[in-house]
């Protein structure tokens, strides 16, 4: 079966495209996911991914690439959440819930009203087999850009994740770093849209990162591990997706979670077994 899979990948262009896109998404999600997990922003990841829906709809209506609309709307949502946080006593998770539900609702309404050719199910759950050449190229470019940003701002990201108060006291622009991360999160969500869909992006963000978190206590190792787990989840998930004619997004998510469960039980020192031995 595996040789058949490899044969098909070699034979059919769209398989290669899907695989390349899936692996790129797995890697980028894995990297950004580390910072999301360490900062306790899992809910924020979920929120931003849902919130980009109206951006996608508006982009289709205007006939522009959906990356642009989604990125703008995602950032707006992050800013909106921050604004509510700073200017009222509403708790952070409630602010996140209020904003992303609204954005998601508006997105659903827009898609229904506009009668565009967008298939809602495809946006919600992804379908990596329909990835076009342009989308694949965009995914690679944006993924590369996000990785470059992480590389350039690595020390700032680590310090503000670990000890934001000390960073701010020493004059660092903690707020700007936060919104930079939100921008990257939005971009990553957008590129993941076709592979896993908006509903399940959060899984690719937090599951490989959490798995890596259980396996190491070095930041750099965690990032590489997380990226590798993301990529492997994509490959194995797509293999099942092709072989058994399953949706790509959910398949990838199930594989990523299976790896997490293995780490959860067997991880040296931090696993379930190590804990009770």
């Amino acid at each position, binding site marked *: 079966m595996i040789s058949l899979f490899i044969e098909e990948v070699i034979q059919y262009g769209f398989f290669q495209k899907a695989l390349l896109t899936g692996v790129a998404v797995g890697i980028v999600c894995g990297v950004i996911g580390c910072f999301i997990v*360490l900062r306790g922003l899992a809910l924020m990841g979920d929120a931003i991914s849902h919130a980009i829906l109206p951006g996608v709809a508006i982009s289709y209506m205007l006939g522009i690439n959906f990356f642009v609309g989604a990125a703008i709307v995602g950032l707006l949502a992050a800013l909106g959440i921050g604004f509510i946080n700073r200017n009222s*006593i509403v708790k952070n998770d409630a602010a996140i819930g209020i904003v992303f539900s609204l954005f998601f609702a508006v997105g659903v309404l827009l898609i229904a009203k506009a009668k565009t050719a967008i298939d809602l199910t495809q946006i919600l759950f992804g379908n990596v087999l329909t990835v076009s050449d342009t989308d694949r190229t965009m995914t690679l470019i944006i993924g590369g850009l996000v990785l470059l940003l992480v590389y*350039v701002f*690595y*020390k*700032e990201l*680590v*310090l503000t*994740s*670990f*000890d934001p*108060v*000390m*960073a*701010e*006291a*020493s*004059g*660092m622009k903690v707020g700007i770093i936060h919104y930079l991360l939100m921008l990257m999160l939005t971009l990553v969500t957008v590129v993941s849209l076709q592979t896993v869909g908006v509903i399940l992006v959060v899984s690719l963000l937090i599951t490989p990162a959490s798995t890596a*978190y259980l396996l*190491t*206590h*070095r*930041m750099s*190792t*965690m990032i590489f591990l997380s990226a590798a787990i993301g990529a492997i989840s994509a490959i194995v998930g797509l293999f099942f997706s092709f072989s058994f004619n399953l949706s790509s997004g959910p398949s990838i998510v199930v594989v990523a979670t299976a790896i997490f469960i293995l780490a959860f039980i067997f991880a040296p020192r931090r696993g379930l077994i190590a804990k009770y031995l």
Partner: protein
Amino acid sequence: MFKVNDLSVTYNNKVRALKNANAELPLGKIYGIIGPNGAGKSTFIKGVLNLVKHTGSVTVEDTPIKKMQCNISYVAQRSDLDLTFPISVLQCVVLGTVPTLGLFRRPGKKEYKVAEQALRKVGMLDFKNNQIGELSGGQFQRVLIARALAQQSTLVFLDEPFVGIDVHSEEIIIKVIRDLRKEGVTIFVIHHDLSKVHEYFDGLILINKTILAFGEVDEVFTEENLTSAYGSNIIVKVGEKS
């Protein structure tokens, strides 16, 4: 001179945690910040460091503190940090060099050397490859002090550094702080154990919702001042301890 002019901090637009605090203190000394629980000691530091919304101003040699903030080390109370964070002791201390490094530079050989020296000073070099969660409270506090050293700042603010740590760690931290003073660094320490005040500090800032008194220890640590900050019971306690 370290000058505080009319510093006020108001939380949630209602509760005034600190009102019209004023002080003027020479640099290069170790100052204790004392006052009863909930008096606004941490709030005072956060106001000074622009970590909370405030009115009034703080200047160091007539420069607004905001313009020299990369020269400031701040060690908050330990409990605020995530001890499971995937970072080693050495990497944690290297982070102290980040605020002054500039945008596109990464910590290199020089920064790691500075960090190792700082770790040696606090007696934690043997632990440099440990994950931070593997340390005792006192050991971790020493690592945070090492991180502050690695910053090579001219102003250091410590919030309750001696709470819940062992005597050995406390002695080391006091020694490190005194060495810093020799280099001309000004150190502010929030402290609640009044019995050590004479031993540890050159000067005091006495706080209860505002700065009640500031200056040399003997000037501030008077029966009259302490009564106004703590109420009349405190004098008995001070007498018993010293």
